[in-house]
């Protein structure tokens, strides 16, 4: 199934025939198994030497394979570590898998290759108990330091009902509290400089400038930031673990809540991956509806960012204007989906209902309403000289740094790289639409803002095209795995009735296999890597979220600046904590 034998033969020529095993996957993404001993060497080659190098570590995760039954043609493995790399030159991804054996597996770190691997490897340790040798700071990242066990291991309970009742005796409470004591050294921070004693400031987890439960430990010299250490995990809800106990269908509402500002966009990423696994082709109308709603949610998400970013910089009014606009957009969403922030409206093989009567009028009203407002905001925010003074040249990173650290989305495009998955790898019918990919050159807070503001206008363009050219036809696929299936014929033929009954009661059984799909989310590239064991529930759900690497990067771009700049930087990154912690 590998469509590009090019990479495979290239790697075989370099590392010998026996070194690599290819694996066929449902998504056709070149997937190779590498022996643990040679993985680092292989990755280094792919990143630095290969023609059209795979410069970005797009994702790094693992699978607990111990209870997986359908692994035809794959090498023996208890825990599989997966490196997902992205090549901008080739516009191609590659997946390198490394098989690990035993109950306490270990692997070499790749932090020397990609600095962004740091947090991903900590997550490996935290979630799977995979020891990463040579890692500079291997501690838990999402779970509390005192947590017992590694949640994404299959033996770890998924529900509270599978665990003994929670008790907090005094000794435990004391121990927990002691564990919370702040010791700068543990965070890799220094207490004293050459001639200064540093001040440590605990910014968050509850702070008006962090937009959610994010903790940043600052080492300050006056108001100047010497170092920052982000502490995440406060918003961790086990979204990936929950995937393993929800049916393919009932997991959709959970995806809404990952990037909770971008509703449908999450559904889209998940469902495109599910549909790849199931082999469902959706009708054109479905594609167009999905694109339309996703772009509306991109605008909604960007409006929240716009307002809060301005508020972070001390401007009081914009946030009210933009939230009002967002309300208008939600009115449209509500009329179409019933829900607002979490519409939970896309379905496997289609959407929940057809568009309601009068949807186009509502959408047109919104299309007519927003541009004038955006123009106002240009004057109020973007052209304001204090705003410019606060954002230009602040939080700057180069294109190379962006790629090193796994930055995607507007943050990447602000560095001058015109990379948009909607254009580069069109999905869900984006190839039919006429739109531009806004970029900027400097990679600072201001340019990230410029890109997002321009993106809202492009999204309006796409929606406008959707409204104009909405294809007629069914809003659900005919595929038997479509959930819920089309109802019209259920009472007329037994086949449809059975499918309907099964898919609604147990949920669809998605064929065994692996598929990844990444989309251009509102905050960067959002992707779902799904593994089916031929069951009604996923065997493993991996959510690649953009905010995770973006937040990891904050220390790099905040050092040497002031506390106020840090707030500007956080605002300009546009993250959502649920998207960081999942």
């Amino acid at each position, binding site marked *: 199934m590998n469509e590009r034998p090019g990479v495979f033969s290239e790697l075989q020529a370099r590392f010998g025939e026996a070194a690599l095993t290819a694996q066929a996957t449902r998504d056709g993404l070149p997937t190779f198994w590498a022996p643990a001993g040679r993985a680092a060497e292989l990755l280094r080659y792919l990143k630095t030497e290969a023609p059209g190098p795979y410069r970005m570590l797009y994702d790094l995760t693992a699978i607990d394979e111990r209870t997986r039954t359908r692994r035809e043609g794959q090498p023996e493995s208890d825990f599989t570590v997966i490196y997902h790399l992205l090549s901008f030159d080739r516009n191609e991804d590659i997946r390198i898998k490394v098989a690990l054996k035993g109950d306490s597996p270990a692997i070499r770190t790749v932090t020397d290759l990609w600095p962004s691997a740091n947090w991903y490897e900590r997550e490996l340790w935290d979630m799977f108990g995979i020891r990463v040798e040579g890692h500079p700071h291997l501690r838990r990242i999402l779970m509390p330091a005192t947590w017992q066990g590694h949640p994404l291991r299959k033996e770890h309970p998924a529900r509270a009902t599978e665990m003994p009742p929670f008790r907090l005796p005094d000794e435990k409470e004391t121990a927990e509290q002691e564990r919370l004591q702040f010791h700068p050294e543990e965070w890799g921070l220094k207490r004293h400089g050459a001639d200064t004693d540093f001040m440590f400031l605990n910014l968050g987890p509850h702070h*008006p400038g962090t937009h959610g439960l994010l903790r940043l430990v600052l080492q300050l010299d006056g108001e100047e930031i010497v170092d920052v250490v982000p502490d995440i995990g406060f918003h961790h809800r086990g979204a990936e673990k929950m995937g393993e106990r929800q049916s393919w269908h009932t997991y959709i509402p959970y995806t809404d809540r990952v990037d909770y500002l971008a509703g449908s966009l999450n559904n889209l990423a998940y469902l495109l991956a599910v549909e790849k696994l199931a082999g469902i082709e959706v009708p054109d109308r479905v594609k167009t509806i999905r694109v339309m709603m996703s772009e509306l949610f991109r605008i909604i998400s960007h409006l929240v960012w716009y307002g809060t970013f301005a508020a972070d910089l001390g401007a*009081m009014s914009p946030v009210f*204007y933009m939230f009002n606009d967002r309300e208008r957009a939600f009115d449209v969403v509500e009329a179409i989906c019933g829900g607002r922030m979490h519409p939970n409206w896309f379905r496997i093989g289609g959407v929940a209902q057809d568009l309601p009567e009068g949807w186009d009028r509502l959408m047109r009203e919104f299309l007519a309403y927003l541009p004038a407002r955006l123009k106002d905001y240009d004057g109020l925010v973007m052209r304001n000289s204090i705003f410019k003074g606060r954002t230009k040249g602040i939080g700057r990173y180069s294109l190379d740094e962006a790629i090193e650290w796994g930055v995607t989305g507007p943050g990447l495009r602000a560095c001058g790289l015109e990379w948009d998955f909607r254009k580069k790898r069109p999905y869900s019918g984006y190839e039919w639409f006429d739109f531009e990919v806004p970029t900027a050159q400097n990679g600072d807070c201001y340019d990230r803002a410029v890109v997002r503001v321009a993106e809202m206008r492009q999204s309006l363009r796409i929606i406008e095209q959707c409204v104009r050219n909405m294809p007629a036809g069914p809003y659900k696929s005919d595929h038997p795995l479509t959930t819920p299936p089309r109802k019209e014929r259920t009472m007329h033929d037994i086949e449809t009735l059975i499918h309907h009954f099964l898919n609604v009661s147990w949920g669809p059984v998605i064929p065994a296999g692996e598929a990844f799909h990444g989309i251009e989310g509102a905050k960067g590239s959002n992707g779902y890597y799904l593994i089916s064991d031929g069951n009604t529930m996923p065997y493993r759900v991996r959510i690649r979220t953009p905010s995770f690497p973006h937040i990891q990067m904050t220390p790099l771009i905040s050092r040497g600046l002031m506390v106020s700049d840090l707030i500007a930087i956080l605002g300009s990154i546009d993250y959502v904590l649920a998207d960081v912690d999942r």
Partner: protein
Amino acid sequence: MSDTARSLVTIFAVLLGALTLAGGFIWVERRLLALFQERWGPNRLGPLGLFQGVADMIKIFMKEDWVPPFADKPVFVLAPMLIMVTTLASLAIIAFAPGLVVADLNIGVLFFLAMSSLGVYSVALAGWASNSKYALLGGMRAVAQMLSYEVFMGLSLMGVVMMAGSFRLTDIVAAQKSLWFCIPQLPGLAVFFIAGVAETHRSPLDLPEAENELVAGYHTEYSGMKFALFLLGEYVGMTVVSAMIVTLFFGGWAGPLLPPVVWFLVKTLFLMCLFIWLRASFPRPRYDQLMLFGWKVLLPVSLLNLAVTGAVLLVRGA
């Protein structure tokens, strides 16, 4: 005897008037901001939501008078009082109408500057006594900001003083019979207004309390009545600065038809609304940018204004 009685009446009238104005203005600000921001603001309690202020006051009075255990108690309690004392004291010199002034000092302008300088202590001490890092950063910013803005604030008024030939506010008002000083002293007005915003640390120059960065800055640890004193202090401060601008640049109580005191109030209220408009419009500069703007733009402007005014007066006098 009748003199004393008269003074007492004036004092109470001014005190009551100013406090009511400042307290009532919180409601005006909230409604006006809401208007600017496409929302309603407090509109439920009483006609037009007017009793919201009363309700807030009751709530604040009922709150526990709490001092954090880690704070420096005496200083922590003293700080909010200081701001009230200094701002209320500066009210004493303001001439609301002919004869309606508590103390018509011959050094009125200097007294105002002195009081606003003392006001810095309140914020600095609050930041220090709270023994909290956010408060400390807020206090630190406040001292830096207010000390620098103090300089131009004083300098920007000297043009007016030179033109009027007196520090006494009633003399300055009298000197504006033919032409309000806002025209010849436009640069002075601009600098004084900006410095006034910085002195009262109103948004966008509210760096000492910058919510998004420092949670609540110097008053992070304050609650209840002590917090209310800071809030009220800020509003009285804003009233005083507006009243000073009216007195020094807009002819004080002068105006046709309406009684002087009404003119004075109308002008003052207008300026206070300007403060709100400013708050609704601008983002907050960074603390070093604010300093830079002060020392590199406002200081030269006010010095130049001073020199030009002096030269013009000299030429005219000769």
